[in-house]
């Protein structure tokens, strides 16, 4: 493979940009080159606004202190919304799952982002997830329902099982998404209607 940064006819700066862009998911070399050409020739403020947007995301976005979703403030928009039911918590693996479930627009409670799933073979144990914080929330916020929305994979289901054992002695009802979403797949690829149905049809764990 040629090193774009050194050999690009427009010079090293364009070469580096192409390299950076093609490192992004879903972007091949051809697309990276098209995007770079666009950024070189578009209005300067537009190009710089993109650079600033990237910088701003990296400096301002952090994890919500309560639910570990991504946010720009201490507490995320969902957690600070007074209309949401604080006694219902939906457990997901990743922040992007919150985005998918919010798009379905059915769930009115709060979320808890685990930051992954228990995957012992990959070296991820229960202590690597936000479980202590979850147990604290369940006790402090008088949570009455926990909705498990981990991915319907073996490890996702296993994580849900671990959590349900962990909360065994807490006075909460534990439910799970209906099995509309194919086993072995992941939530982020499910469409809105499937997720809405899965939330409405949730079952006891």
């Amino acid at each position, binding site marked *: 493979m040629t090193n774009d940064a050194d050999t690009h006819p427009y010079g090293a700066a364009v070469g580096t940009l192409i390299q950076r862009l093609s490192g992004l*998911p*879903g972007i091949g070399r051809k697309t990276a080159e098209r995007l770079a050409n666009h950024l070189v020739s578009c209005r300067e403020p537009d190009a710089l606004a993109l650079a600033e947007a990237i910088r701003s995301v990296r400096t301002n976005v952090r994890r919500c202190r309560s639910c570990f979703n991504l946010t720009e403030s201490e507490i995320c928009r969902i957690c600070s919304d007074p209309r949401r039911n604080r006694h219902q918590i939906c457990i997901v693996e990743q922040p992007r799952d919150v985005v998918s479930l919010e798009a379905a627009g059915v769930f009115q409670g709060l979320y808890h982002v685990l930051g992954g799933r228990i995957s*012992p*073979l*990959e*070296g991820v*144990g229960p202590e690597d997830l936000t479980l202590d914080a979850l147990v604290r929330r369940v006790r402090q916020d008088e949570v009455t329902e926990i909705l498990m929305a981990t991915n319907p*994979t*073996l*490890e996702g*289901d*296993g994580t849900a*099982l*671990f959590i*349900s*054992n962990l909360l065994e002695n807490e006075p909460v009802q534990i439910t799970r998404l209906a099995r509309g979403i*194919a*086993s*072995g*797949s*992941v939530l982020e*690829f*499910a469409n809105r209607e499937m997720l809405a149905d899965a939330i409405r049809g949730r079952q006891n764990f």
Partner: protein
Amino acid sequence: MSTESTEAIVIRQADFSETSRVVTLFTRDFGKIATIAKGARRLRGPFEGALDLLAQCQIVFIRKTSNSLDILTEARLTARFRPEARSLHSLYGGYYIAELLDGFTEPYDPHPNLFQEASLMLRMLEAGDRPLQAVLQFELTILREIGQMPVFDSCAACGRPVENNGSFSYWVSQSGLLCRNCQKEEFSHHQIPAGTVEVLRRLAEGDSETASRLAISPAQISSLRRITVPALIDILGRRPKMLRYLG
């Protein structure tokens, strides 16, 4: 390059890109293979959710002659691994089987019998009544298949044949039994309760269908796993990750 088809168990997966995954499979006819499954992360891709950890599937793959990854082109689910009983022990036992298959076999070194046993033990774990017995049986199967089964029919020091209900202990460094006369303090060994040696010999002989029907007490299982686990660690050169979860 050739197109092959066989039965396989998914033993490891890692996301590779937005849509692809690297999937390690233990196959019936080719042993362990590492493949790339393009589109595996899509909901309605060519694999339709068949590629879950420990799922058993009928697969088609393109075998590469170079040392690049094989290409998985098809996977049809035959059995998903989902322990019925809500037992983490059954689940972790399943993960352990995946870890042992990955750790103790080499690529393209077929062990059809090991495949058969793995499949059988996964079904036993799913049934969920005796997860640790399934774990023990599989540990013995691995040792037998890789030709490292400790000798259980005679004393490792004096060669005296093992008699039923005789008093034996297990000599860790020599992977063998010690009769009463040979049990010296300077040897690192631990006592095996009477009767347990006989259970061990029957398990070690193979035929897991019969072995699964043996009623082995939890105490006997833990006593026997004090033999199998050190033997496995010794060969692997490290502690399997799942031991922490299985106890």
